[in-house]
């Protein structure tokens, strides 16, 4: 396994209704702060990606995906509204960044999840499979 340094972390922003009661003035302020935050992290090389999610969407469930329902994404405390992909040295650092989220003050939550690194065993298996395929191709 790799050391902890420079691992990817995903910040998942939960809550798609926290901004409903803000005034236009507050929305502008929060938007500017949030944007500044993301820009800064990008400049520092700590944010690799980040995108908002649309409020529309479906939830597929049941065997063979028989149930397709409209997701409760628009007005939900739980739904994910967007994400940042971070490249930082430790979970602590990722958590520290999450604490700067401007939505927290209004009831949004941030979930911090390390992106799993590939297991060395899986890597070996993949290489073996590739070699075998080449061997067949050459035959």
């Amino acid at each position, binding site marked *: 396994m790799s050391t902890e340094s420079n691992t990817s972390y995903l910040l998942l922003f939960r809550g798609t209704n926290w*901004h*409903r*009661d*803000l*005034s*236009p*003035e*507050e*929305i*502008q302020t*929060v*938007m*500017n702060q*949030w*944007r500044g*935050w*993301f820009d800064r992290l990008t400049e520092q090389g700590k944010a690799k990606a*980040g*995108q*908002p999610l649309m409020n529309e969407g479906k939830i597929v469930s049941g065997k063979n995906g028989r149930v397709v329902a409209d997701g409760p994404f628009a007005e939900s405390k739980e739904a994910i*509204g*967007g994400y940042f992909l971070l490249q930082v040295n430790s979970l602590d650092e990722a958590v520290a960044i999450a604490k700067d989220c401007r939505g927290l003050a209004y009831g949004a939550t941030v979930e911090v999840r390390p992106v799993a690194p590939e297991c060395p065993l899986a890597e070996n298996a993949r290489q073996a499979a590739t070699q075998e395929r080449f061997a067949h191709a050459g035959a």
Partner: protein
Amino acid sequence: MVEHLFRHEAGKMISTLTRLFGIGHLNLAEDVVQEALARALQTWPYYGIPRNPSAWITQVAKNLALDLIRRDKVFRNKEIEIANFMEPPNSARSESLSLDGEIKDDRLRMMFVCCHPVVPQEAQVALALKTLCGFSPAEIGRAFLTSEAAIAKRLTRARQKIRGARIPFEIPAGREISQRLDGVLQTLYQLFNEGYKASGGEKLIREELCHEAIRLAALLAEHPAGNQPRTHALLALMLLNGARLLTRIDGAGNILRLQDQDRADWNGPMIARGFFHLAQSAAGDELNEYHLQAGIAACHCAAKDYPSTDWPQILSLYDRLTELNDSPVVALNRAVAVANVHGPRAGIEAVESIRHREKLNSYYLLYAVLGEFEMQLNHHQAAAGYFRESLKRADIASEQMFLSKRLRACEEQNPHADEVRNVRSSVRSSVSASPAQRQ
């Protein structure tokens, strides 16, 4: 990005969408605009601010509105009209200009609706702030020292009144305009005063109320329907007072009297605009309270320092103002002008002869003014008594701080200073006062 952009875009969009949806659906217009701004909050942090933020917000609001009317059969017969607005023909310059004019008209229509006589007076200001200036009920509550819930209730009642009375969403014409314009001016004046008065509410929000009142009055003044001498007079009075708004309080939150303010900090461009509109206000032959108040403010703005203030001119304006308005508060202000022209004793007499003076009994400034007059007469004990009375009735910290300081100034004089002075003047001794007493 422009300061207050979202707030002002909200004001524009709500007015225009209200015209399209009908005044009965004012709520809906507000919701659509809120949603459009929320979309900006969701996406701009990631993708950056669009080159034309206003156009982006407008477009999103239009799309949301279009979705909404397609879903809701209430709007079925309006779909074509609304769709036409939503997708204006790819426009030559003249068309975009006329669209701009149309949006201004919408805001004026909204002003006349908010200030319609069927809407209770106290709700008019709140409604104007909500629909035209994009303030939230919480912000309005903070400005008026009221709860968000109380404001929300006020707004709901106002919307019901508007719907119930079927107030048309239009700029009144003909004979009606004059009377209705007075209502609008009165509400804008009240809005400005809410922001200007030193007492109550959060400071930052109050400044913004003044600026919003000025913005709306300017919009009114440049529109043919509102371009009247009295509109210019109101605008002049707001500008000439608003220019001095920030210098009334120092960095530590202390009230600064006119003579203690740094005139270099007065807002020059606002004063210049104020004088411009004061000149415009003189166009007709009417003279109302706004003219006189603007004239008084102009005297202060024109003086390069406190001693060179033209008090006789100010007094003559107050004399005319008291003819038009018998408010005891105006008369109290006049007494200050009297004292500056004829001395503190004349000032006290002017206070004593105020009609309905009893209405001022709970007003802290009555006692503060009398305290100042007595102080100028070196009646320190009497002055201290008035400042104590004033202090009892002052509500906010900066006022209390100011009055305590004035009280201390009286008390720091020897408590028996009056008697000592009498004795001293009869003895005519120059060595009787110790350094401690002199302080």
